[in-house]
């Protein structure tokens, strides 16, 4: 085998070329951010298993074995809206915003009327706007985050959602990031920015799909800024095919009394990594982080959460569940940091895994670091196999073993499904989990 160009150099070289393409399109301040990001990447390089938060995800044997190009001249052959309808989404009721290979697709999107002052658009259109200066790269700085840095360096487009003070967008905002390719490997780096002003509300769905023939990389970053009393419901559905290498970073900064609820459904990809973080920077902010990951074959799904309790009287709750079959690997690394000033913190975290095969692997690492003395914190982790007693009980009532197994897996995952408060998502997500179970060869 011929030796490939060392990955870091390859990415740096790609950046040089990409830089030429993007030159002239970016306003000066964006150009500055990109250069800084690349410098930071150049300095730090790709994360290695030496770093605690990457301990179980060795990129040298997975992602870095695969080169990705920037050919993006593909358009989707099918209607995204029709595909979503097929999944049970009542898309007529939602704002549909579609990106193909990281670039906004006007033809595929359909955005309804919005409250006065609200913005639901895409980055390429607004990248010159100074209003984005306090957001882009501010919630997710490039320093110390190699993939966020690459995203900053490479992004072409992404979602912009801005909701003004006191306004609410009643319809779900369904954002689809679709990757399409043919015989060459591709990559995309969507950058999504969400800004909710005081007492505003929105429901945002980030949905990752593909029509891919060759491997591809999705490296997305979503920056969320919530002002006082704002409330964002965020649902991520990672439903890409086995061609996908998925790295997603979702970070929120929360002001007083704001609420950030995030739920990550991870079903696809050969490698999927989800980083979800929030900083509760002012009192009485609340966050809810949930997730369900289902993996089989040789899938590797890695979830890393971080809740930073900076201010007093904030509340955080985390519930993550995983089902691992075949030789799949599931990782949960959840960290809660309660700083000295964060008295009266209420923080809870739970991770449960169900292993359906002997060869599947689970690494669960809940962590609590508490520096305040008047707090209520708990965390727990449990990993188990299929309950043989329950299986026999179901069989003894005439239910076939395979059906009984599915029923029990569904029951385990069902707890997450039951928690979904939105009619728009309930049925399609149930269907998705059902399909996953039924798809076992």
């Amino acid at each position, binding site marked *: 085998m011929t030796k490939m160009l060392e990955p870091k150099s390859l990415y740096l070289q790609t950046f040089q070329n990409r830089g030429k393409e993007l030159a002239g399109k970016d306003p000066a301040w964006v150009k500055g951010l990109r250069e800084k990001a690349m410098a930071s990447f150049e300095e730090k390089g790709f994360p290695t298993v030496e770093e605690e938060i990457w301990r179980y995800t060795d990129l040298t044997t997975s992602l870095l074995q695969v080169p990705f190009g920037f050919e993006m001249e593909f358009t989707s052959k099918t209607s995204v809206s029709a595909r979503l309808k097929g999944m049970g989404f009542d898309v007529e009721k939602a704002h549909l915003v579609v990106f193909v290979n990281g670039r906004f697709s006007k033809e595929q999107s359909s955005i309804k009327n919005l409250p006065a002052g609200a913005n639901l658009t895409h980055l390429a259109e607004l990248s010159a706007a100074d209003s984005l200066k306090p957001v882009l790269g501010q919630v997710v700085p490039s320093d110390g985050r190699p993939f966020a840095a690459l995203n900053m360096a490479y992004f072409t487009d992404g979602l912009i959602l801005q909701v003004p003070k006191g306004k609410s967008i009643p319809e779900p905002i369904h954002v689809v990031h679709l990757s399409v390719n043919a015989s060459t490997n591709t990559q995309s780096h969507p950058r999504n920015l969400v800004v909710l002003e005081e007492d505003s509300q929105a429901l945002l769905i980030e949905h990752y799909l593909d029509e891919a023939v060759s491997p591809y990389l999705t490296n997305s970053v979503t920056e969320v800024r919530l002002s006082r009393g704002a409330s964002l419901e965020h649902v991520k559905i990672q439903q890409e095919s086995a061609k996908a290498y998925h790295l997603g970073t979702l970070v929120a900064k929360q002001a007083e009394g704001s609420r950030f609820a995030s739920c990550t459904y991870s079903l696809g990809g050969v490698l999927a990594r989800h980083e979800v973080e929030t900083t509760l920077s002012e009192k009485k902010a609340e966050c809810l982080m949930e997730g369900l990951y289902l993996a089989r074959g040789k899938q590797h799904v890695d979830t890393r959460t971080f809740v930073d309790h900076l201010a007093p009287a904030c509340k955080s709750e985390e519930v993550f569940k995983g089902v691992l079959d075949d030789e799949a690997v599931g990782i949960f690394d959840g960290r809660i940091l309660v700083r000295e000033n964060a008295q009266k913190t209420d923080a809870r975290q739970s991770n449960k895994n169900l292993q359906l095969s002997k060869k599947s692997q689970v690494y669960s690492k809940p962590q609590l670091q508490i520096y305040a003395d008047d707090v209520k914190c708990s965390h727990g982790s449990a990993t188990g196999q299929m*309950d043989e007693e329950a299986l*026999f*009980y179901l*069989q*003894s009532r*005439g*239910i076939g073993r395979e059906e009984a197994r599915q029923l029990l897996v569904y*029951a385990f995952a069902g*707890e997450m499904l039951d928690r979904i408060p939105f009619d728009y998502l309930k049925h399609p997500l149930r269907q998705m989990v059902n399909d996953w179970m039924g798809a076992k060869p």
Partner: protein
Amino acid sequence: MLEIKNLKVRVEEKEILKGVDLTVKAGEVHAIMGPNGSGKSTLAHVLAGRDGYEVTGGQALFEGHDLLSMLPEDRARAGVFLAFQYPVEIPGVNNTYFLKAAMNSIRKSKGQEELDAMDFLELIKAKLKPLKMDESMLQRAVNEGFSGGEKKKNEVLQMAVLEPKLAILDETDSGLDIDALKVVADGVNALRGKDRAFLLVTHYQRLLDYIIPDKVHVLAQGRIVKSGGKELAHELEEKGYEWITGVEKVKA
């Protein structure tokens, strides 16, 4: 209906059943009594098909078919039902959904049409009443957080819904107060009929005051050591098990 011949069963290295013979005809109610550790529950579990038991000899025929070679679900579909001593809690599975899935699996195996949700709900509500069960328990997860009495009633409810030919009740009286015991017994008695047989596994005679058996067998040290009519149960209650197991020892 059920014919057990010289059944020998081992759990790990230990022989639990050492040659059990038992014949149960349609319409009959048999009680299997015996001291703790005599093998009563093993017999019930082996007939239902639980894992972890090694049959080392003998056979069990159900309507002439080799029961022991069948999968647990196929036994249930053929008409065998085990009411568990410790019904399993299944969080996340709704009781109605479970009952409907069970019933429809059995119907399907018989080539009958599956019941839809509405028909099923009507059927099940009718079955709840005599058991004095609240409809709210249909919406709860299977046995999750149920009291001991509720769990046992739920077993009888399943039996009433699935209408088995042979019902095996494993220590169904354990953990029940007298009121719950009466309700459970009434539920069982209501199902008695000429086409259905019952095998009541119990340590105490108490249950047999409410469900009058046709025959009583004493299982001790892996064998049936004495069989008789319903009066045998009373005798056991008065004299204890040593009376029989002692006789057996002398004989041996």
